């Protein structure tokens, strides 16, 4: 070390020999020992590369160095410059590889993160089913059916109590849940037959409620409708309810969820493994620890940024495309689901940004320690 320091003092391109040596040692030892990096204090990689460049671009300085150095010969100076050039090339190659692996880490990390959010929110059967069974939707469906029933009461010249007493939020909710759980195969308690049974049960209660109300109010019933009137009335209400409850595209959605869920699961595992591999590779091709951490940090920030770009893209599509599906409460429910999915992406992006910030803080700490 003393020789090197003397050399540092004497030579005009003073950094070259010492950095060469420390570089050389670091290149060869950074896999085996971290200590070597710290021992080469006072010389950051940038210093080295700049000094390397200056020495390689100015052969006169190296010749000058060889002249001033008493113990060195022409042969040894040529050898050291050759060695120096090789080291520069290795450094450059390492930097390239680090950048490439950092980019690949960014890609796999982004894919893992995006697939995870898609799996958790977008193709999650529970979340999709929630479109149809959330409280707002069920309350709105109840109001819709009740409005229809009241109109039907007016049409049939019977009191509105016929409908209001028989149709309750709980019954409508149970019917909607039975259909949704059955269609999405979420609960063994519910199936298509449960749904049909509940509809029949509601029909029966409307018929009995109508008959009793007509009787209680002493209403005169149309002669041709004495037996069939109440059941026709109940059938109209239940068929309207069925129209509202049953969604044509449930099977399509279910099959898309199943396929995408499997694909995303495979994708998450695959990209997670690749992410770990690229993380290790990014860390491997470096002479300084902080550079490796910084490269990882770029990947994490990139993944976070990509998330926000995707959210922005969805926002732009939402601005330019009208999203109206009737009934409006269904549209509202779907919008809430889409909003939740977008929020999941925003949160994911924010979390990645936080992780990136933490990594960059660690990176700065390492760099400061080295300096």
């Amino acid at each position: 070390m003393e020789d090197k320091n003397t050399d540092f003092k004497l030579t005009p391109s003073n950094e070259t020999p010492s950095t060469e040596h420390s570089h050389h040692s670091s290149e060869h030892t950074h896999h085996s020992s971290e200590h070597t990096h710290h021992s080469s204090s006072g010389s950051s990689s940038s210093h080295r590369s700049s000094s390397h460049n200056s020495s390689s671009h100015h052969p006169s300085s190296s010749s000058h160095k060889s002249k001033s150095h008493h113990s060195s010969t022409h042969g040894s100076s040529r050898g050291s410059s050759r060695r120096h050039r090789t080291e520069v090339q290795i450094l450059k190659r390492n930097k390239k590889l680090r950048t490439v692996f950092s980019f690949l880490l960014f890609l796999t990390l982004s894919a893992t993160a995006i697939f995870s959010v898609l799996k958790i929110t977008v193709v999650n059967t529970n979340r999709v089913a929630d479109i149809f069974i959330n409280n707002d939707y069920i309350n709105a469906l109840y109001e819709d059916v009740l409005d229809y029933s009241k109109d039907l009461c007016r049409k049939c010249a019977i009191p509105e109590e016929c409908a209001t007493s028989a149709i309750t939020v709980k019954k409508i909710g149970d019917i909607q849940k039975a259909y949704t759980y059955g269609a999405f195969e979420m609960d063994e308690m519910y199936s298509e037959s449960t749904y049909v049974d509940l509809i029949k049960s509601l029909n029966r209660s409307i018929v009995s409620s109508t008959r009793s109300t007509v009787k209680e109010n002493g209403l005169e019933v149309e002669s041709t409708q004495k037996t069939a009137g109440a059941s026709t009335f109940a059938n109209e209400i239940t068929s309207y309810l069925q129209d509202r409850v049953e969604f044509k595209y449930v099977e399509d959605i279910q099959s898309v969820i199943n396929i995408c869920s499997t694909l995303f699961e495979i994708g998450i595992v695959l990209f997670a493994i690749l992410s770990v591999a690229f993380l290790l590779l990014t860390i491997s091709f470096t002479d300084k620890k902080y550079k490796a951490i910084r490269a990882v940090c770029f990947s994490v920030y990139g993944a976070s940024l990509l998330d926000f770009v995707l959210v922005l893209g969805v926002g732009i599509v939402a601005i330019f495309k009208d999203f109206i599906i009737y009934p409006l409460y269904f549209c509202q429910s779907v919008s809430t689901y889409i909003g939740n999915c977008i929020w999941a992406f925003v949160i994911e992006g924010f979390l990645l940004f936080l992780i990136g910030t933490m990594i960059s803080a660690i990176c700065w700490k390492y760099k400061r320690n080295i300096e």
Partner: protein
Amino acid sequence: MKGMKKDTASKSEHKHSKKHRKSSKKKERGILPYISNPLIYVLISLIVVLPVFMGFTKGAVSFVHKVQKDYSIDFNDVSINTDKFDNNTLVYENDRIGACEKVGVLKYESVGIISDVYYGINRVSLREGIGLSSKSTFDSFKSKLSLAGYSTRALKGLSNAKAGDIITFETTDKIYQYEVESNTVSANPEVQSSSVMVISCDDSSKAFSAYSKQKRYVVASFKSMRDKKGE
């Protein structure tokens, strides 16, 4: 002298390298790489991500269009609209009148009927008054108006209609007068003239009479028309 020159040369190089070191340190310490590098990564990745995103969006949009076709607007999402009528901006052309929009007022005072008339015979229009069929034609003297309502509500008392009675239909700017020709209960109305008004409702006010095939039809022929402003 040579030694002096060497010294100055080494000093200047030393200064130069110090400067270089400082600038490179500044570069490394700045946050720019933390912005530029991820940005470059994202821009490069967009080459792949953008077409995938566009494809996904296209698929989603076509699915939404498909659903929109099947789930068109129903009367649970419609309410009556009186704005155009109240502002005298209503244009009496079938294509330019919205569902459940107020189009006029029907007055048949001798049987106690005074009710607003809304476009379309549907549960929303009938809930609030009388519905005017969308097949009706507005052509001044040759107007053919087909109206319907609940026998228990807006058209209560229509069973008392008699031939020769006068029914008036007020639009935003005109008052049409019709003279009752017939009041019958049948499966279909008997209409001879083209410029008529047909008012229909259930035969009786009995429970479930709506399910009966027999309906009451009051047919009235056009008598006169005058501007509302003259009133």
